[in-house]
């Protein structure tokens, strides 16, 4: 049967293009996921290795070797140890690497830096001089080139350097070294200084993470000498590794996160593969339906059932092999391109490498082939069951009744009920794992039941939309002509759309709910705290007025914060109060209930405990009003605060409270905060408040949503290829019928429109059903995750969901273009002549 299979593939090559494309994309996703993992590791190894590039051995204090003894004194590796190691005859050079922070002052600005001892005789601490020379005395330093450029510092300049000992002295920059690509170092400006000078600057923290060692002759000999040295000094918690071992060790520590990323990506790859599988099932179903006569003829001529089946499976195998190889090649090309792009766009990341391993290449190919063959085995079984008589069937029945397997329906109902129950329970109990399990069970359950509701919805909506148009009615009929085919095509799309809309709804609800809980913690939108300034009421008022004139700011008010003494009650001692001007405060405050009156204190975070009606603070008895909001400081009026005996005057500070315009976008808020910080001349972290935190959360959620949507888009893309595929195969099948319609007076345009309507119906209804499911899952999931945090606020991102629908519909329209054009090109006579 091999030659039959191969001949079939050759004859029907065009029919397989789409399915090959779909499988290739699915496989490429998987291969790219694995390549991301291996490449990240290789890249990290490349960059982490920079520190030990020219070294043989690395010695370091290793927590894992330390005994489980609270009295154990950990070894401290300092200059003394480095010098002792240098004296070993088997060692050529040794230097320590440390993280000691300091500050470097240029004429214009100050910068945080890392201080590192370097010695010209000892490999210059692993640094590579690009310019100048090594520091020769305690007043000379070298600096890395990237940061030197940023600081506008060059060789010969004098700068101020403050060490960990807080002493500042002027030093001269005598050399520039290459910036390390080690991600643990490259973020910092790296200052190299003479060892003795470093020891002084570092003070108490003059210890090393690692001692990097070069052997004089043989590495094993040096290793032995080191072991002896460590034993002699009882440094049992110090490890010595070769540089390679150490890099692998470090990479393992850093890549915990990458592995998680890989797992997440793998989940998405799995979704893409499931969708691909559906497209494969469908393609083979259609192809086999079209070949019924041919296959039945083979049976009549004496082909055994088994032979028919293997012929189909061989076809699937060939397609699987071709598509998977194509997919892996696509993934490799994509990754190589991306890394090339990184090299071009970010020259400093020249260490980024494409790394592939056998597993990463073989697994996707195997998975791709298996998936194709397994998916094709269902249609193959159906082909096998064909009776020889089918070859003589006189008339193509108008619509094929595929009875959904009873078993599948029963199973689907059980899964849906069980999963739905779990999901509801998880949502009510606020337990994400339970809800997640429920989703995991119910979604496949619903998909199993898809044949019960998808064709019916497609037909119902199709008839509704068609109105009196004949082409529309025919389109609706054609769309459900083969319910099994329609269901599989729609399900593939439904999966992607459900997941996309689920995370959209979940994300939006999360944003809204977080917004809620954040709003409860802040009395106003924004607070500008002037911690470092002496309190000056007039200047603060001026600042408030100035800020009030900014675009996006509606109202401002000022406050005064100070600490007061209290006696009695649950918080004896000092506590912090915020004094506000009730008149202007009431204009900026979000909750009018917390505007204090003179002689009144508004208390927060009381934990629901009964509070005394009166509280004596700062020598005065105040009326207590309890609020359920959760602010940091209790509130009084400014006048009240001034009448109280306050504590340390240094604790007092003033500030401005701001109400921003209600409909600012996240980026506008970020920009506004920068602007406020600028006007008030404070660091931007001193401008805080609900809207800032909210903007931050929203941005994080938005980024996550964008990433996840992009990943799921692959599955949606594959499903849309499936829609195009099903449609073009169906059109082939209906050539004669379409020609008949043309002969009877259907215009070319109407024929194309009819096919477009059919595609849009399947795509649109699948998307619509997916949206409904996605909204339900999204809301339940968000409830399960977030209801513990506080009051939920359910929000549905209508616009985004509408966009998903529009994209699906437009894509389905596009999918109908090629089949439609092909159908319309055929003259009625040609079409009627075809068998």
């Amino acid at each position, binding site marked *: 049967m091999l030659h039959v299979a191969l001949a079939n593939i050759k004859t029907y090559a065009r029919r397989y293009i789409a399915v090959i494309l779909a499988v290739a994309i699915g496989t490429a996703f998987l291969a790219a996921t694995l390549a991301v993992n291996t490449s990240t590791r290789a890249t990290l190894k490349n960059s982490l290795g920079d520190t030990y590039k020219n070294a043989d051995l690395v010695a370091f204090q290793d927590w894992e070797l330390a005994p489980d003894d609270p009295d154990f004194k950990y070894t401290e590796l300092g200059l003394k140890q480095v010098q002792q190691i240098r004296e070993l005859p088997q060692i050529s050079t040794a230097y320590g690497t440390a993280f000691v922070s300091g500050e470097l002052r240029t004429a214009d600005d100050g910068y945080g830096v890392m201080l590192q001892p370097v010695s010209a005789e000892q490999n210059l601490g692993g640094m590579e001089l690009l310019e100048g020379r090594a520091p020769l005395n305690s007043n000379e330093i070298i600096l890395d080139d990237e940061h030197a450029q940023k600081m506008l510092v060059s060789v010969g300049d004098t700068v101020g350097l403050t060490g960990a000992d807080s002493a500042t002295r002027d030093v001269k920059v005598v050399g520039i070294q290459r910036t390390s690509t080690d991600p643990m170092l490259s973020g910092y400006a790296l200052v190299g200084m003479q060892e003795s000078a470093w020891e002084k600057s570092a003070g108490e923290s003059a210890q090393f993470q690692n001692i990097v060692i070069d052997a004089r002759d043989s590495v094993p000999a040096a290793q032995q000498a080191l072991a002896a040295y460590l034993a002699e000094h009882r440094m049992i918690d110090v490890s010595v590794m070769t540089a390679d071992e150490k890099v692998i060790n470090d990479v393992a520590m850093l890549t915990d996160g990458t592995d998680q990323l890989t797992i997440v990506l793998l989940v998405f790859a799995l979704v893409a593969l499931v969708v691909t599988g559906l497209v494969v099932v469908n393609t083979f179903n259609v192809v086999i339906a079209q070949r019924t006569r041919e296959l039945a003829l083979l049976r009549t001529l004496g082909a055994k059932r088994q032979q028919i089946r293997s012929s189909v499976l061989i076809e699937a195998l060939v397609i699987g092999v071709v598509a998977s190889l194509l997919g892996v090649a696509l993934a490799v090309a994509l990754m190589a391109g991306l890394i090339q792009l990184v090299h071009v766009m970010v020259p400093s990341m020249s260490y980024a490498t494409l790394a592939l391993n056998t597993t990463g290449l073989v697994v996707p190919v195997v998975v791709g082939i298996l998936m194709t063959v397994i998916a094709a085995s269902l249609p193959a079984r159906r082909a096998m069951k064909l009776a020889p008589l089918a070859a003589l069937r006189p*008339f*193509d*029945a*108008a*619509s094929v009744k595929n009875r959904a397997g009873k078993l599948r329906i029963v199973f689907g109902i059980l899964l849906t009920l069980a999963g739905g129950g779990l999901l509801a329970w998880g949502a009510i109990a606020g337990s994400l794992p339970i809800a997640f399990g429920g989703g995991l069970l119910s979604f496949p359950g619903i998909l199993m039941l898809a044949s019960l509701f998808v064709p019916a919805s497609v037909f119902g909506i199709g008839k509704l939309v068609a109105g*009196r148009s*004949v*082409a529309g*009615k*025919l389109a609706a*009929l*054609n769309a459900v*002509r083969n319910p099994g085919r329609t269901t599989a095509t729609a399900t593939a799309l439904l999966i992607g759309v459900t997941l996309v809309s689920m995370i959209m709804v979940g994300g939006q609800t999360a944003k809204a709910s977080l917004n809620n809980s954040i709003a409860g913690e802040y009395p106003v939108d924004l607070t500008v705290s002037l911690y470092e300034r002496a309190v000056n009421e007039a200047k603060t008022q001026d600042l408030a007025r100035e800020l009030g004139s900014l675009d996006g700011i509606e109202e401002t008010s000022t406050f005064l914060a100070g600490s007061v003494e209290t006696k009695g009650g649950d918080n004896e001692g000092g506590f912090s109060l915020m004094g506000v001007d009730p008149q202007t405060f009431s204009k900026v405050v979000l909750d009018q209930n917390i505007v204090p009156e003179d002689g009144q204190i508004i208390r927060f975070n009381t934990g629901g405990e009964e509070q005394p009606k009166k509280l004596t603070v700062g020598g005065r008895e105040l009326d207590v009003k309890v609020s359920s909001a959760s602010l940091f400081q209790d509130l009084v009026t400014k006048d009240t605060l001034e009448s109280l005996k306050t504590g340390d005057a240094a604790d007092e500070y003033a500030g401005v409270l701001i109400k921003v315009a209600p409909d600012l976008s996240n980026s506008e808020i970020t920009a506004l905060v920068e602007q406020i910080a600028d006007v008030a001349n404070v660091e931007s972290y001193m401008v805080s408040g609900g809207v800032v935190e909210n903007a931050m959360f929203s941005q994080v959620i938005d980024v996550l949503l964008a990433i996840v949507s992009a990943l799921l888009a692959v599955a949606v893309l594959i499903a849309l290829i499936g829609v195009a595929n099903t449609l073009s195969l169906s059109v082939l099948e209906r050539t*004669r*019928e379409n020609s*008949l*319609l*043309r*002969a*009877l*007076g*259907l*215009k*070319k*345009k*109407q024929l194309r429109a009819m096919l477009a309507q059919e595609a849009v119906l399947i795509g649109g209804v699948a998307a619509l059903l997916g949206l409904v499911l996605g909204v339900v899952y999204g809301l339940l999931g968000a409830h399960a995750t977030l209801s513990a945090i506080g009051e939920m606020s359910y929000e549905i991102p209508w616009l985004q969901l509408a966009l998903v629908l529009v994209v699906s519909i437009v894509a389905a329209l596009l999918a109908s273009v090629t089949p439609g054009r092909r159908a319309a090109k055929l*003259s*009625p*006579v040609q079409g*009627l002549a075809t068998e």
Partner: protein
Amino acid sequence: MTSETLPLTEYAVSARGLTKSYGHDSTRVEALRTVDVAFARSRFTAIMGPSGSGKSTLMHCLAGLDTADAGEIIIGGRDLMTLNDDELTMMRREQIGFVFQSFNLVPTINAKDNILLPLSLAGKSHDREWFNTVIDALGLRDRLSHKPHELSGGQQQRVAVARALLTRPEVVFGDEPTGNLDSRTGAEVLSLMRTSTREMGQTIIMVTHDPAAASYADTVLLMKDGSIVGQLENPTVATVTEALASLAE
């Protein structure tokens, strides 16, 4: 013949200088060689000839299903050769009816919808009285709600005839409309077609191989090698068989 000697209005369909060839160079086949032909209104004409003589090609060209290489085809006073695809489509919808040998019906819709299809495509409502006349004449009344696969071959052909007659087109074309039917059912369909010319004044042009079928026609045109080579009026099975035999020589 010139147009002065051939007043177009007497004819439902007329064609002049119709030429069509397939393939090129060595595989070139001249399916129609400058055919001049005219079909009088309200008559039932059969086209006969050996296999490959160009009968179907002629019919497809006349019906605007296929385009000839050269010549003119006049139906309802318009030259089909000058029309674009949409205009041709409108012509087929309104002026031309078809009955094919097989696969005449759209399988997804029932007999009634199939019969009404050209009208619904044109967005027109049907003449109820005429519909009833046609349906009763064809004996389809209790088959209207059946899907095509629930109908016998003869019933399917009758539905196709009903569809062709319902629009009262200028001309109905049939390419071996009874080719797939047994002789009794075939005879039924053919006498229906004859009745419709006699009683309803319908012009019908039919391609057939069967002398018995041709004997239902008023006129038989004989074709050979892409040309019309003869004509028989009031044919009988005997005269038709004789004429065909002489063609084969």
